[in-house]
């Protein structure tokens, strides 16, 4: 309803107007209207939060825990987080003033950027990466600087690549490994080199480790535990992926006291605290959730091998991702761009994937396929994608078939 006599409302802020809409939005809108879509486009676990954890949340509501908590979050939860990071990775954070419970890693990322950036400060963002990194930098007045990683390097980032984009205004590097969307992980030594680089040039490292537990090959390295890292690293993590708790919105940030206090100040004005019942559930997750986590990890791992083998068999070249729950195959051989491929696949075969371009530089030519879905659905999706490739690029499908005849278990996975 428009009121003819009223004046037009004032314009929105420049920053809001210029903020790019997420590249995922379009596919969501199309897929949501279609029937019988198999979605490999979902960036969250298909498991429901384990019952014991849900029960702790319910019990908290029953007990009438309906209040605010400390701005930092429940002390008991921070103590468990502190213990967990020390035991698992040797990263020692004090529960008193170095850990902040946030509304997911999403809030944590926003807080870090607002706490460390001045207008015009640049942040190096290795890409393809999670969709919120660039916007969070921009919203805080900073300037995101993409650093394209390459499929031939398994989407790992090197100091040489970072160095090329370094300027006098560079203030921080955002690292998100294991990576959404590529599934890449970083070896310990490569991370140490990046820490040394950050040390030399006095940069912050913002490390989003939300997929830490979903590391299938080798051990996850918590960057803060590396030499010279602690004083300049902000560790972001949470409960969404490991414990299948996306909707509870509980994350945490760990940083040296000066940085954390600044983040806490902002958090105290903008979020105040994370929901108390969700914090109680998270506490239960850390105390008694381990066996459920291990069970989910082994199921993701089985699906990971299945989907990667399936994609390669269809002719979509895909390296074996070592973490998270995404395969990031190349669609270059089909001659279609990632957008075209994803859009036609959705319309013609009813399979939803996300084009790599939604995740920034270096994503063109790839699609993100989430295997956080049942094996039955993965198999149906693979057969539909196979039909699609057969249709748009029969020679690719043919080539893949002839290769897979002489193909047994993938070499890289044979001894896992």
């Amino acid at each position, binding site marked *: 309803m428009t009121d003819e006599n009223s004046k037009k409302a004032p314009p929105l802020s420049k920053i809001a107007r210029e903020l790019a809409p997420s590249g*995922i939005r379009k596919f969501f809108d199309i*897929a949501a209207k279609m029937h019988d879509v198999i979605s490999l*486009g*979902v*960036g969250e676990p298909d498991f429901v939060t384990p019952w014991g954890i849900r029960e702790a949340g319910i019990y908290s509501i029953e007990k009438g825990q309906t209040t605010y908590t400390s701005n930092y979050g429940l002390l008991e939860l921070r103590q468990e987080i502190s213990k967990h990071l020390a035991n698992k990775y040797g990263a020692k954070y004090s529960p008193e003033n170095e850990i902040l419970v946030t509304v997911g890693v999403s809030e944590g990322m926003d807080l870090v950027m607002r706490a460390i950036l001045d207008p015009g400060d640049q942040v190096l963002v290795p890409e393809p990466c999670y969709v919120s990194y660039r916007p969070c930098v921009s919203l805080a007045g900073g300037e995101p600087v993409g650093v394209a990683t390459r499929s031939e390097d398994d989407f790992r980032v090197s100091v040489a690549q970072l160095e090329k984009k370094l300027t006098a205004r560079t203030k921080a590097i955002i690292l998100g490994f294991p990576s959404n969307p590529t599934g890449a992980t970083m070896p310990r030594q490569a991370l140490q080199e990046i820490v040394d680089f950050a040390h030399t040039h006095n940069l912050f490292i913002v490390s989003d480790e939300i997929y830490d537990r979903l590391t299938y090959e080798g051990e996850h390295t918590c960057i803060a535990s590396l030499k010279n890292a602690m004083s300049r690293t902000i560790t972001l993590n949470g409960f969404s992926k490991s414990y299948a708790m996306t909707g509870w919105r509980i994350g945490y940030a760990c940083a040296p006291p000066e940085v954390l206090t600044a983040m806490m100040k902002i958090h105290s004005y903008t979020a105040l605290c994370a929901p108390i019942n969700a914090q109680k559930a998270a506490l239960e997750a850390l105390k008694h959730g381990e066996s459920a986590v291990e069970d989910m990890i082994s199921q993701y791992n*089985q699906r990971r091998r299945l989907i990667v083998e399936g994609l390669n068999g269809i002719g979509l070249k895909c390296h074996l991702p070592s973490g998270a729950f995404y395969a990031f195959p190349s669609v270059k051989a089909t001659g279609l761009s990632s957008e075209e491929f994803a859009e036609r696949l959705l319309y013609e075969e009813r399979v939803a994937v*996300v084009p790599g371009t939604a995740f920034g530089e270096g994503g063109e030519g790839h699609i993100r396929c989430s295997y956080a879905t049942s094996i039955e659905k993965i198999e149906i999706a693979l057969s539909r994608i196979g039909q699609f490739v057969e249709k748009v690029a029969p020679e690719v499908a043919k080539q893949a078939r002839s290769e897979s005849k002489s193909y*047994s*278990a993938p070499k890289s*996975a044979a001894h896992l």
Partner: protein
Amino acid sequence: MLNYQPMPLEEPDEILTILSRDARTSPEKIAKMLGRSVEEVKLAIAEYERLGVIKHYKTIIDWEKTGVEKVIAFIDVKVHPAREVGFDKVAERIYRYPEVQSLWLVSGGYDLRVAVEGANIREVGRFVAEKLAPIEGVMATETHFLLRKYKEDQVVFVDNEEDTRLVVTP
């Protein structure tokens, strides 16, 4: 060359976990899921079968949906254990009956728990009165009829699990 040792196990072999979830998972698929060769998986399964680690492959059926009438009862049995053989002799006399689906030795007020299947309540009642109770060593029984199955062997019988996630998310 086979470098795969199925036994002894320190933690459950994933082959067994996968088969316990779905016995029809083919060796080819298991091989892909675990990054092993098909031959290895087939050999391991054969070995498990030979050793009796894998006892049997069964299907879980919701008989109610087929319209077939069946009655299941759990009967707790108090037993006077026999010298030397303990409960085993009595157990053996009970499990030989084809009506007996399962039989467990349990702790608590009763000693054996028997699961019995029959066409109707009368049939099960007759089994208890005429076959089970008179067995030497059986001192008392308590029969519980199954009224509704909610979950069996990890499978939930109520259809309510739908994926409520948004179709595409970051």
